[in-house]
């Protein structure tokens, strides 16, 4: 059987598509960010969850925690909840609502988009939030989540 003269091109395209597919998860990855003055480099998954569910009000150094989130239907919020916190957005919402409407907690501050998130986290001491990787710059500190 004769080899098609276009097979090189086809292979090239196939490889490009594969590489592009492989790069997607990395592009889509969300990271935990905090105010540049946060005194830690990493948080345990449990601590991170407790902070985002508004049940841990202080950083290990004693400062008040300020939680920022994107709207429930924002794709970055959905991905961060599911992939990093391992919670569905509606589970987080359930905890916030239960606490808020029974007088045992406050709601996190909701910001409109990632630019507003970066600005709020950069300017608020004690802030914690999340951003997609390409949005992270040196105005905020990226924190690792320990398993």
């Amino acid at each position: 059987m004769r080899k098609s003269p276009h097979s090189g091109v086809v292979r090239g395209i196939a490889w490009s598509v594969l590489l592009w597919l492989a790069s997607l998860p990395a592009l889509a990855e969300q990271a935990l960010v905090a105010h540049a003055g946060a005194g830690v480099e990493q948080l345990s998954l449990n601590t991170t969850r407790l902070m985002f569910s508004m049940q841990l009000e202080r950083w290990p150094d004693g400062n008040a925690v300020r939680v920022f989130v994107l709207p429930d239907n924002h794709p970055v919020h959905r991905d961060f909840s599911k992939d990093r916190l391992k919670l569905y957005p509606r589970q987080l919402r359930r905890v916030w609502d239960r606490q808020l409407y029974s007088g045992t907690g406050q709601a996190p501050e909701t910001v409109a988009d990632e630019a507003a998130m970066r600005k709020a986290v950069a300017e608020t001491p004690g802030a914690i939030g999340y951003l997609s990787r390409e949005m992270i710059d040196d105005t905020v500190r990226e924190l690792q989540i320990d398993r």
Partner: protein
Amino acid sequence: MTQSVNCRLTARLGRAVAGAGLVLALCTRVPVAMAVDWGDDFQVHGFATQGFVETTDNRFFGDSDDGSFNFTELGINVSYRATPSLLLAGQLLSRSAGDMYDGSPTVDFAVADWTVSSDQESGYGIKLGRIKNPLGFYNETRDVAFTRPSIFLPQVIYFDAVRNLLLSSDGAHVYGRYSTDFGTWSFDVGAGITRLDENVEFTFLGNDFNGELEPRGLSPVARIAFETPDAAWRFALSGASTTMKFDNEPGDPIGGGEVDILYGVASAQYTAERWSLTAEYMQQPVEYDGFGPLLDGRDRTIEGYYLQGSYMLRNDLELIARYSAGFGDRTDRDGSESSAATFGTIPRHVFYQKDWMLGLRWDVTPSFMLRAEYQWNDGTGTLSRRENPSLSTTVRNWEMFSLLGSYRF
């Protein structure tokens, strides 16, 4: 004839427009209030809910057999984190619900919550004030439509006819949580003075007599819960006990006496990405003492349970189905003995209720939600006696259609 039909239609249309107008007015005014900068530690939230109920027979939340808009919930919620350890929070609630509640504003809760210690392994604290009772999965936030699984909570456990009996109490609670590798345990234990109203009198004494039904002593309440680390499984056991004292007055056909009530709920829930299953089971032993022959023989254990499933068709669209059943006396589930005790004047179906519900929730935006539900009922056990004074004429098999719109900020 035609004219009277027209009048009725016009009246209903008028109520519909008034209801929609109310929701719209709130929707448009609320963002103005939000624009005020209250500072980082001070938060104001609120909600506005309007419902519509239409039943084939019987009355549920107003004149539902003609279609009723008499279901409105308005709440304003303020909280102030004075220090990371001290939270002050309160909520004002106006609730119109048929003949049962007229919408007069009440202090739903007013709590000072002091976190004594909190870290990633454990935490505990103390609450003082008017506290919502931690019963079942839904009691604490039962009037916030966004937190309910359906337009109405399953009535066989969360009775609207006697909601105040278990709603909240003025007192003190101790709470805590403890994390293990398998999940998080939490508890909430307290005691306080129960808030009663005439709806409780109607339900437990059968009428609103001249004398007053009052709470006697402190009512204890407790919940212990367990949740797996991924929050997929949740389990809870909760209970409360309360004693009510009735001082009879001239003209009352019953003597003065006491009603002892114990209320216990076992709850379980599984949440997956797109679906969830919830089940709760409740028993409530009721004891009468000192009232004389009319009531003292009516000691019984009320029972109720439901199984509910939900499935998210889209991220903003949820389908819900539920079966629930409740019995006025768990040893007499078909109501035959209870009915015989009234010499058949009250039919059997008044002493139980079994129903199927199918509903749809649409989250139009994260802060605006619409719901539509249909319910098929056998029995009238959860209906308010106040709304249906003549129990013998209630219709055994009845259906209910309801709509709800809710906005929050």
